[in-house]
């Protein structure tokens, strides 16, 4: 038995866990986070007004919430706020780890919230300024932060990127039968049978699509 899994708090927990376990930054859950934040603020107001009323009544039980209910609500709020904070921090950690990649790739950049985009840009500028103070003293073609040897059309070979080939643990949420791992390699031997409830250790790149479809969750 678990708590109902259709509440926003339960969805936040899933988003938090997925974000924790995925090597790359995932789509920011803007609507979900906004709803949870609003619910938390509303519940906070309920708890503090109940406590204020109880204090005014000299500790005696008043018309609103009793002490125990307020205590339990407060405990839940702490749990939800912890998840929200951890969700934000995990994302910031990933942005910092791959900041050039995040700012450079439009597809990745669009997964961030407006505040995260601003943070990523500021952070990238700081890093550039910081590295630049040392790099400017190096010989001519070695002053780039992005390339080992500066070349006009050369690849950016010094940009840290998330490792999509990392292996992750996941739990399947819906039956998918024989699932083709690599669309570029349609060999029937390269399929795995995915059944609900199964746990797999698998390459993140293979299941990235299924994660976006919510057909599995990372654990």
């Amino acid at each position, binding site marked *: 038995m678990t708590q109902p899994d259709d509440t926003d708090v339960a969805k936040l927990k899933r988003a938090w866990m997925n974000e924790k376990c995925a090597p790359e930054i995932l789509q920011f859950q803007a609507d979900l986070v906004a709803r949870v934040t609003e619910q938390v603020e509303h519940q906070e107001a309920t708890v503090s007004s109940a406590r204020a009323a109880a204090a005014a009544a000299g500790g005696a039980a008043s018309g609103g919430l009793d002490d125990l209910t307020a205590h339990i609500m407060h405990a839940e709020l702490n749990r939800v706020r912890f998840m929200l904070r951890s969700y934000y921090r995990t994302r910031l950690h990933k942005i910092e780890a791959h900041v050039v990649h995040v700012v450079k790739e439009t597809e990745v950049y669009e997964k961030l919230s407006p505040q995260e985009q601003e943070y990523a840009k500021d952070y990238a500028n700081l890093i550039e300024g910081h590295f630049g103070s040392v790099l400017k003293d190096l010989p001519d073609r070695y002053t780039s932060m992005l390339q080992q040897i500066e070349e006009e059309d050369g690849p950016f070979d010094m940009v840290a990127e998330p490792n999509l080939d990392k*292996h992750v*643990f996941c739990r399947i949420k819906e039956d998918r039968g024989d699932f083709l791992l690599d669309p570029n390699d349609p060999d029937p031997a390269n399929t795995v049978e995915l059944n609900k409830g199964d746990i797999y250790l698998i390459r993140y790149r293979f299941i990235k699509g299924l994660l976006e479809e919510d057909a599995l969750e990372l654990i």
Partner: protein
Amino acid sequence: MSTRSSSDLTHQEVNFSAEDEVVLVVPNFSLQQVHLLGGTYGPFRPQIQAAVPLWFATILKKQGKCCIIPPMWLNVNALRTVIETERVDDVFQGLPFHYIELAAELCKHARDDMIDWSRLYDLVDTIRSVRHVKIQSGLRGLNADALKGVKLRHLSAIEVNVLRPFMSSVVDHFLNCFK
């Protein structure tokens, strides 16, 4: 062992996650429904069973306001059967995803609600070590097929988290050898 970075899931966080599992309590007080963000619980009446998340039950228990009913699988006979089949069978037995955390938490906070809690604690610990040995021998059998995904049916949350730093980096390195 690879080092942990700040984004890795810690055992405390797995424990936090387990505290959302629902348990049955028998309250000794009356209280109307409690509307929480994660669901509505109650109403509570003395001697009438109610289902609440573990963190909720722990608060009530600490205030002496309820007994916690141990889940069905957490009894001496059931656990003994699990140990026996776990020893002879190749597959992992179906235990709750958070069985280790639930047993530990209940043995800590609700031991007076359980018959012979220390025995139960030991049995769960035995299951855990029997399964750990199985996991280790399973690791020895990994081959190139592991790159297509390793199926780990019925592995529990803590077991995943213990295995994660080692096993995922092993298969990562394995993949690099084939590139």
